C-alpha cells in the first residue's frame, strides 16, 4: 500500500488540508517545529486504525467541535487497486470508517484489516509509523504480537521460559543435590529414622532362638535342682522322723527292761480281778435278795387274814352307785320345783281371764275342742267380701240419683220461673235444695243406723237415728209444702213450659228407676247379712259379730287354746320332779340305815347322808381289793424265794471255779497273782503301742531293727545338728531353683513379647510406603529432569539454527549502519533482551543494555527494517512513516541509514518527517528522486 494523497480536516492545525499527489517512493516532509509533523503522523495512524478511545493518552488532535473531525487517504494497494479510506467522528469511539474504490463504489469496511495485511495498531505503530521516542522504546520481546512476528506463529519465548521455570521448580522441589528441604531429602530422613527403628528390632529371630534355648536349659537345670531337693527333703524327712521317734524309742527301751523282771504266765483267767470283784459283788447282792424275799413272804401271809369295816355295804353296790349318780339330779330337782310350780300357777290365772273374755259359756274344754281351721277363716273372708260388694253397690247408686235429682230440680225451677212470671207454677230452687239436703241426711242417717246395727256399734246407730229421723221429717214437710202450691202458665210461654214439663216427667221417671235399683241393692245387702248371721250361729259363734269381729274372736280362741296346752305340760312336769325327790330320799334312807346313818326329812340331810354313804362304800371297796391282791401274792413270793436261794448257790460255785482256774482257793492269793499278770499284760501292750508309735512316725515299711541300731549309734543332739545342716542345704537349693524359675518367667515373657511384637512388621510396612513414595518421586523427578534436558537441547539448537529470518535481516542492516562494527543480533530464548555480536576474531556477545543510545537506536531501526521487509513479504507493503529518527545518529551512520531508507523505499513507501535541514539534505543526497513536501508552504 502506498499513500497517493492525504485529505485532512479538523485535525490539529490542519483544516481541510490536502497533500498530494505523493508520487516519490521516499518523500521528506519538512517543517519547522509545530508545523504539524507529529499531527500528520498521528493522523495517518488514526485514519487507518481508528481514533484513540477514552482509555489511551494518545493525542486526539481535535480542534473545533463544529468542524467534522477526520479525513481521507487515497491509496494504491500492492495489487494495484486504488481506494479511498475515509474516517470521521461519529458512531463508535474509533470513528466511522468508509471505503470506496476509485469509482466511488463503497466497499465493505470489514476488508480494511485485510488491506492492512492483518497488522494491528500496535504492530503498525511499532514497526511502520514511529517517532524518535518510540524508536528507542522498541522492545519486541515484551510484546507478544511483535514477538510472534519475530519468532513465528505458535511460539512465544515467554511461554517457553515460563515452562522452563515451571519444570525447573517442579524438579527442584523434589530433589536437589545437597539440598536439605526437598521432598526426597525429607523422605530420606524419614527412611533413616525407620531404618534406625528397624535395627533395634532386627535381631528378633536370633533373640527368640536364644531365649528358647536358654529357656530349655534353665528349665532343665531347674528340674535337676528339683530332683536334688527331693532327695535332700527325703533324707531330711527320715532324719526328722528319727528325732521325733527318739522319745518313744527311749520309752520302749525302758518298757522292755521292766518286762524282763516279771515272770511269764501260762494260762490265767481273763479279766481275773474284775471277775473276782464281780463275783463278790453279786454274792453280796444275792444274799440280800434272799433276806428281803423271806421278809416279804411273811408280811403277806399276815395281811391276808385282816377284817373290813361295814363290809355289808359292798352287797348294796348297785344302790350305792345309783345314790352317787342321781345325787346331782336330786339337788337340781329340789332347786327347780318352786319355780316350776309358780309358772304353772301363772298360766292357770291367764287361762281363766281368757275364758271370761270369750264369754260365760266358754270353758277350757270348749276352747280345746274348738277347731280353728283355715276353711273357717276362708268362709269369714268370703262373707266379708260379699257384704262389702253389696254395700258398694248401694254407694254406687247414690251419685246417679243425686245427678237426676239435680237435673230435676233445675227443670222444675225453670217451670216455677215460668209460673212466677205468670202463674208461677214451679218449685223454687231454694225449696228444692232443702228437700234434696233433707233426703240426703235421712238416707245417710239410715245407712249409719244399719251399719251400727250390723257392727253392734251404738255410736253408729245413734248418729244414724239422730240424722235420719229429722231428715225424714223435714223432707216430708217440704213435700207437703210443695204439693200445696198452685200452678198457672202464661200463654206466651206455654210451648216452652210444656217442653220443660216433658223433661221433668222424664227425669222423674229416671229418678224413680234409680231409686228402685237402689232399693234392690239394699235388699240384697240385707240378704247377705242374714246369711252371715245364720253361719255364725251354725258354728257356735256369737251372731252379732261382723266378719272382722269374727276373725278377732277366732284369734282369741287360738291364743287361749295355746295357753291351755302349755299349762297341761307344766303340770305334768311339776308332778314328775316331786316324784324323783321322794324316790331318792327313800333310797338314801334305806341304805343309810345299813351303815348306821340317821337322816332328817330335809334335802340337806339327804344330801349329806348320800356323801357319807359313798365315802364308806369306797373305803370298803379299796380294803376288799387290797386283801385280794395280798392273797394272790403269797404263793408268788414263795416261788421267788426259792429262785433267789438257787441263784446264790450258783454264784458260790462259779467263784470257786474261778479261783481254781487261778491256781488257788484263796481269793487274796488269786488277787495278787492276777495283779502280776495284769502288769505284764500292760507292759506288753505298752511295748506294742510304742512300736506302733514308731511305725507311725517312721512309716509302716521302715525297718525298726535298723532304727534301733541307728538310734543306738546317735544322740538326739547329733541328729538335730544334722537336721539344721540339711535345712540350710535345702534353703540354698530352693533359692537356686527360685532364681531359675524367675528366669524362666522372664524368658517366657520375652518370648511372648517377641511372638506378639508387630513393631518390626509395622516399621517395614512404613519403610515400604516411604520407599514407594520415594520411587514415585524419583520417577517424577526423572520426568522433569528429562523435560528440562529436552527443553535445553531444543533451545540450544533453536538459538543456533532457528533464529528467525527477521533477525538475520536486522543483523545485515545493523552491520551496515555500524559500518561492520557489529555482525549479528539474536534473541536468546530465556531472556527478554536481544544480544548483539561484536565483530572480531573472537565475536563477543553483548546485551543491548550495554549499547550506547545511538547504537541502540540503530539496532532498533535495523530490526524495524527487517520487520518491514518480513511483513511485506508475507502480507502487504505498508508505508513507513518516521519522525526524526536519525537525530542521535552520527553523520556517517545517518548517511548509511538514509541509504537504507532508500532501499526500503524500493518496496515500501517512505515518509520521513524532519525539522532539520541537514537531514532533508542528507536524504536528498542519499536517495535520488526523493520527494519533498514543505509543510510551511501554502496548500
Amino acid at each position, binding site marked *: 500500500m502506498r499513500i497517493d494523497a492525504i485529505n485532512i480536516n479538523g485535525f490539529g492545525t490542519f483544516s481541510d488540508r490536502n497533500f498530494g499527489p505523493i508520487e516519490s517512493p521516499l518523500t521528506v516532509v519538512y517543517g519547522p517545529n509545530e508545523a504539524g509533523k507529529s499531527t500528520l503522523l498521528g493522523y495517518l495512524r488514526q485514519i487507518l486504525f481508528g481514533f484513540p478511545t477514552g482509555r489511551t493518552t494518545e493525542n486526539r488532535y481535535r480542534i473545533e467541535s463544529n468542524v467534522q473531525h477526520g479525513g481521507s487517504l487515497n491509496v494504491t494497494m500492492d495489487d494495484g487497486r486504488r481506494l479511498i479510506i475515509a474516517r470521521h467522528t461519529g458512531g463508535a469511539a474509533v470513528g466511522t470508517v468508509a471505503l470506496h474504490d476509485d469509482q466511488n463504489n463503497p466497499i465493505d469496511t470489514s476488508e480494511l484489516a485485510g488491506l492492512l495485511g492483518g497488522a494491528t495498531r500496535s504492530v503498525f505503530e511499532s514497526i511502520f509509523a514511529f517517532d524518535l521516542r518510540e524508536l528507542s522504546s522498541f522492545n519486541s520481546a515484551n510484546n507478544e504480537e511483535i514477538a510472534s512476528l519475530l519468532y513465528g506463529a505458535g511460539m512465544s519465548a515467554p511461554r517457553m521460559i515460563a515452562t522452563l521455570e515451571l519444570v525447573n521448580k517442579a524438579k527442584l522441589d523434589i530433589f536437589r543435590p545437597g539440598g536439605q528441604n526437598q521432598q526426597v531429602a525429607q523422605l530420606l530422613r524419614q527412611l533413616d529414622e525407620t531404618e534406625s527403628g528397624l535395627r533395634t528390632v532386627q535381631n528378633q529371630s536370633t533373640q527368640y532362638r536364644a531365649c528358647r534355648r536358654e529357656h530349655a536349659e534353665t528349665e532343665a537345670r531347674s528340674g535337676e535342682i528339683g530332683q536334688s531337693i527331693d532327695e535332700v527333703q527325703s533324707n531330711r524327712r527320715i532324719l526328722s522322723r528319727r528325732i521325733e521317734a527318739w522319745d518313744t524309742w527311749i520309752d520302749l527301751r525302758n518298757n522292755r527292761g521292766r518286762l524282763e523282771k516279771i515272770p511269764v504266765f501260762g494260762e490265767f483267767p481273763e479279766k481275773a480281778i474284775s471277775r473276782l470283784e464281780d463275783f463278790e459283788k453279786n454274792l453280796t447282792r444275792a444274799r440280800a435278795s434272799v433276806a428281803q424275799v423271806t421278809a416279804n413272804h411273811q408280811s403277806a401271809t399276815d395281811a391276808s387274814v385282816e377284817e373290813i369295816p361295814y363290809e355289808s355295804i359292798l352287797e348294796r353296790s348297785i344302790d350305792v352307785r345309783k345314790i352317787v349318780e342321781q345325787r346331782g339330779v336330786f339337788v337340781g330337782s329340789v332347786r327347780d320345783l318352786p319355780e316350776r310350780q309358780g309358772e304353772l300357777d301363772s298360766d292357770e290365772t291367764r287361762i281363766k281371764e281368757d275364758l271370761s273374755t270369750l264369754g260365760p259359756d266358754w270353758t277350757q274344754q270348749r276352747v280345746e275342742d274348738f277347731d280353728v281351721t283355715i276353711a273357717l277363716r276362708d268362709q269369714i273372708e268370703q262373707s266379708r267380701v260379699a257384704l262389702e260388694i253389696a254395700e258398694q253397690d248401694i254407694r254406687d247408686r247414690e251419685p246417679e240419683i243425686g245427678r237426676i235429682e239435680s237435673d230435676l230440680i233445675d227443670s222444675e225451677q225453670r217451670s216455677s220461673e215460668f209460673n212466677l212470671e205468670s202463674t208461677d207454677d214451679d218449685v223454687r230452687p231454694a225449696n228444692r235444695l232443702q228437700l234434696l239436703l233433707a233426703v240426703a241426711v235421712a238416707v245417710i242417717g239410715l245407712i249409719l243406723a244399719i251399719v251400727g246395727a250390723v257392727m253392734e256399734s251404738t255410736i253408729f246407730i245413734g248418729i244414724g237415728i239422730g240424722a235420719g229421723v229429722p231428715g225424714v221429717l223435714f223432707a216430708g214437710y217440704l213435700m207437703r209444702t210443695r204439693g200445696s202450691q198452685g200452678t198457672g202458665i202464661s200463654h206466651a210461654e206455654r210451648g216452652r213450659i210444656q217442653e220443660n214439663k216433658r223433661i221433668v216427667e222424664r227425669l222423674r221417671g229416671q229418678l224413680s228407676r234409680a231409686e228402685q235399683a237402689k232399693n234392690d241393692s239394699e235388699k240384697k245387702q240385707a240378704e247377705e247379712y242374714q246369711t252371715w248371721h245364720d253361719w255364725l250361729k251354725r258354728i257356735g259363734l256369737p251372731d252379732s259379730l261382723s266378719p272382722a269381729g269374727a276373725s278377732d274372736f277366732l284369734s282369741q280362741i287360738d291364743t287361749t287354746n295355746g295357753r291351755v296346752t302349755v299349762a297341761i305340760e307344766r303340770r305334768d312336769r311339776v308332778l314328775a320332779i316331786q316324784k324323783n325327790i321322794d324316790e331318792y330320799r327313800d333310797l338314801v334312807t334305806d341304805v343309810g340305815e345299813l351303815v348306821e346313818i340317821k337322816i332328817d326329812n330335809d334335802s340337806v340331810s339327804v344330801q349329806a347322808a348320800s356323801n357319807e354313804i359313798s365315802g364308806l362304800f369306797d373305803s370298803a371297796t379299796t380294803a376288799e381289793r387290797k386283801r385280794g391282791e395280798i392273797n394272790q401274792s403269797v404263793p408268788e413270793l414263795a416261788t421267788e424265794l426259792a429262785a433267789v436261794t438257787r441263784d446264790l448257790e450258783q454264784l458260790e460255785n462259779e467263784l470257786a471255779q474261778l479261783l481254781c482256774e487261778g491256781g488257788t482257793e484263796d481269793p487274796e492269793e488269786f488277787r495278787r497273782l492276777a495283779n502280776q499278770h495284769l502288769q505284764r499284760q500292760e507292759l506288753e501292750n505298752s511295748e506294742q503301742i510304742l512300736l506302733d508309735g514308731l511305725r507311725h512316725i517312721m512309716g509302716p515299711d521302715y525297718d525298726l531293727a535298723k532304727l534301733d541300731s541307728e538310734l543306738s549309734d546317735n544322740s538326739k543332739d547329733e541328729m538335730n545338728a544334722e537336721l539344721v545342716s540339711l535345712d540350710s542345704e535345702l534353703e540354698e537349693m530352693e533359692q537356686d531353683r527360685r532364681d531359675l524359675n524367675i528366669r524362666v518367667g522372664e524368658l517366657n515373657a520375652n518370648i511372648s513379647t517377641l511372638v506378639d511384637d508387630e513393631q518390626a512388621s509395622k516399621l517395614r510396612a512404613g519403610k515400604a510406603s516411604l520407599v514407594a513414595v520415594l520411587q514415585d518421586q524419583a520417577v517424577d523427578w526423572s*520426568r522433569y529432569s528429562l523435560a528440562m534436558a529436552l527443553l535445553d537441547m531444543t533451545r540450544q539448537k533453536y538459538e543456533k539454527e532457528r533464529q528467525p529470518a527477521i533477525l538475520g535481516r536486522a543483523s545485515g542492516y545493523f552491520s551496515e549502519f555500524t559500518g561492520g562494527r557489529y555482525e549479528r543480533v539474536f534473541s536468546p530464548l530465556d531472556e527478554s533482551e536481544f544480544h548483539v555480536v561484536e565483530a572480531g576474531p573472537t565475536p563477543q556477545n553483548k546485551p543491548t543494555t550495554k549499547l550506547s543510545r545511538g547504537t541502540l537506536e540503530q539496532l532498533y531501526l535495523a530490526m524495524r527494517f527487517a520487520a518491514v521487509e518480513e511483513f511485506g513479504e508475507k502480507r502487504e507493503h505498508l508505508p513507513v512513516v518516521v519522525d526524526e529518527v536519525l537525530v542521535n545518529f552520527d553523520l556517517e551512520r545517518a548517511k548509511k541509514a538514509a541509504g537504507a531508507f532508500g532501499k526500503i523505499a524500493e518496496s515500501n513507501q517512505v515518509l520521513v518527517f524532519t525539522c532539520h535541514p541537514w537531514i532533508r539534505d542528507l536524504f536528498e543526497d542519499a536517495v535520488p528522486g526523493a520527494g519533498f513536501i514543505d509543510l510551511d508552504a501554502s496548500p
Partner: protein
Amino acid sequence: MANYRFIHASDLHLDSQFGVLSAEFPELAEILRRSTFDTYDRIVELCIEEKVDALLIAGDVFDSADNSLAAQLNFVSGLERLSQHGIKSFVCHGNHDPLDGWRAGLDWPEGAYQFGPEPHAIPFDETDPNSPVVTGVSYPTQEVRTNLVTQFPPPASNRPSIGLVHANVGADTGHENYAPCTIDDLTTSGYDYWALGHVHTRRELRGRNDGAPVVVYPGNSQGRHRNEKGPRGVYIVEMDEHGGVTALDFRPTDGLRWQELECAIDQLNTDQELINALDEKVRIAIDEADGRHLVYRMIMTGSGSLHNSLVRPDYTDDLQRQLNSTFAGLRPFALCEKIVDSSSTQFDRDQLASGTDFVADLLTLIDQIKSDPEQRAQLKNRAELENLFGHNRARRYLKDSDPDDSSIVELIDEAERFLLFNLIEVEDE
C-alpha cells in the same frame, strides 16, 4: 489306580511389606500389612479343604533380610495345622530364605520336611510304595549361582517323581539369576513334575499336554506391588501312580489384588462425566476381583479436553481422593494408589512437528532421541539422573526403579505431554 494330589506354591514372602501409600487409611494399612499371612492361611485352608496329600513350597517362604520372627512363627504354625490334618509338607529354600536365614530355630512338626543343601528324596508316604517321591534342595546361603538341577539324582524309575527347587530357568525371567538352569536340564532329568519357585509370574513352562515333565512356576501367592498385577495363587496338581499329571489347576489365593485400570477420556467432557466413568471402571474391577481387596493404578488414556485438567497434579490428586473416599472405605476395599495421566491433547502431533517453530524443533528432537539409543544415553546424562539414582543415601531404595532404556522412552513421552501442554496455547481456551 491311586491318585495323589498336592498343592504347589512358592514365593510366599511372608511378612514382606507393600509400598502402598495408605497413611490416610490406617485400617487398610493393617490389612495390607497382614496380607501375606492371610494368603498363607488361605493356602493351608485350601490344603485341608481339598484334602491334598501334601503341600510343596518351592522357596522364598519369607525374606530373611527382614529377619521376621512373625513370618517364621506363622509359617511353622501353618505346618502344624497341616500336620494335624495328616497333610505332609515339603519345603525347599531359595535366595530369600536360605538355610542360614532361619534364625528363630523353630521345631518343625511331624510330617513337615525341610530340604537341606544337598538334593535329597523323601516319599509322600513311607508306607505306600507307589506314592510320589519329592526330591528337593535348599539354598545354604543366598548366593547360589550354580546349577542345582543338574545335581539332582535320577529319580526312582518305578515311582512318581517330583523335583522341588528354587531356580531361574532361562536367563530372561526378569529375576536374579540364582541357581540358573535350562529347560533342557529339566526335560532330560527324568522327573515327572518340576515344582519350581523364584519367578513371581505364573508360568507353565511345560503344560500337561506338553509331555513329561510338567514344569511350573506357580508365581507368588500374593501380589506385593503394582508390577505384580492380576490373580496370584497356587497349583493343585493331581498325579497318578505312574507320575502322569492328570490335573493341573491354578487356584488364586491372593486376598488383595493389584490391578492397572484404564480410562479413556475421548468421550468425556466434564469433570462429572470423568468421575462417573472412573466410578464405573472401579466398580467393574471390584466385581471382577471376586471379594478380594483391590489396589489399583488408574491410567488415563485417550485424548480430549479433560487432558488439560489431568496434567495438573493437584487435579489427579483430587480425583484420587475422590475415588478413595468412595471405595477405600468399603470391605473389600478398592484403593487407588495413583492416577497416572497418559492422555494427550487434541493436537495433531505430526502437524506440530512439521512446523518451523520451537515446538516443532522440540518434537523433532524427541523423535530423534527416541529412535537413537545413543542420543537417549546422552539425554539421560544431560538430565543428570545419576544425581538421584546414584545418590549415596537414596540409591539403595531406587536400585530397582533406576529407569532402564524402555522406561526412559516412557518418561520422554510423559515429558513431551507435559511440555506440549505448557508450551502450546490451547485454541479453545
